[in-house]
């Protein structure tokens, strides 16, 4: 448990990450979301192979789960990848212009749906926040990182991370 944080400890075990017979439930959630909402078919998302690359022109989308052990589900990727995700969600053509409003809406919804499903893994969760989307990385204590899942979507890098938040 991170010093300075009150309340029950949130660990990969309490999140159930290691309790799925070797399958990663966070990956299963992300795979479902991408297959159903973004790709229309399974098979285009896999775990990132090798060292994580530097993320340039990064975008961050997240939702917070309130409750006894508050946490954040954060999606990070490059703007270009987020734009491709937006086009896929809206069934737009490659190269078609994406409005900033749609871009933020789409990336936020991906974080929202992943977060809503991750919430189901958390013991005694509270309310789910509305999604936030920013260019700047949200301020988070590095020691509060609970779990990180690097992903490869059609050759592009993205990362889902789970963070413990201070109790109020």
């Amino acid at each position, binding site marked *: 448990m991170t010093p300075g944080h009150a309340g029950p400890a949130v660990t990969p075990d309490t999140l159930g990450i290691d309790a799925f017979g070797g399958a990663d439930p966070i990956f299963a959630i992300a795979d*479902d*979301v991408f*297959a*159903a*909402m973004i790709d229309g078919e399974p098979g285009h998302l896999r775990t990132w192979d090798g060292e994580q690359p530097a993320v340039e022109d990064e975008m961050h989308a997240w939702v917070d789960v309130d409750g006894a052990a508050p946490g954040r589900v954060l999606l990070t990727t490059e703007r270009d990848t987020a734009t491709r995700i*937006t086009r896929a*969600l*809206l*069934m737009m053509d490659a190269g078609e212009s994406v409005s900033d*409003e*749609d871009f933020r*809406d*789409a990336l*936020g*919804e991906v974080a*929202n*749906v992943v*977060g*809503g*499903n991750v*919430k*189901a893994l958390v013991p005694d*969760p509270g*309310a*789910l926040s*509305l999604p936030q989307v920013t260019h700047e990385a949200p301020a988070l204590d590095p020691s509060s990182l609970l779990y990180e899942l690097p992903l490869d979507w059609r050759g592009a890098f993205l990362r889902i991370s789970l963070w413990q938040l201070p109790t109020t």
Partner: protein
Amino acid sequence: MKVLVTDDSRVMRQIVIRTLRQAGYDWEYVEASDGSVALDMLGSEEPDLVLSDWNMPEMTGIDLLRAMRANGDETPFGFITSEGSTEMRELADAEGALFLIAKPFSAEVFRDTIDPFLA
């Protein structure tokens, strides 16, 4: 048949309507960006079914459902939301919702869930 799709995300409203059409529901769709907007539209649009997100600013989906029932509006109501916990399903049922579909969804899930209520 007219359906009022309520979600604060325009992208999600588009995906919901697209998936409903993929499921074979060739209905008329009207959209609301929030529970309070949906509540205002009910009188003029007179939908046959309301499909709503749960977590929205201004007015949540469950508050929309409560307000409708408090007004004597018994329009059939279903949730399409990113959360599908047992507690939320029980609350939705207790307040009179027909069903709760958790995101992500597919056309098959829509058919399996909605078809029984169309008979």
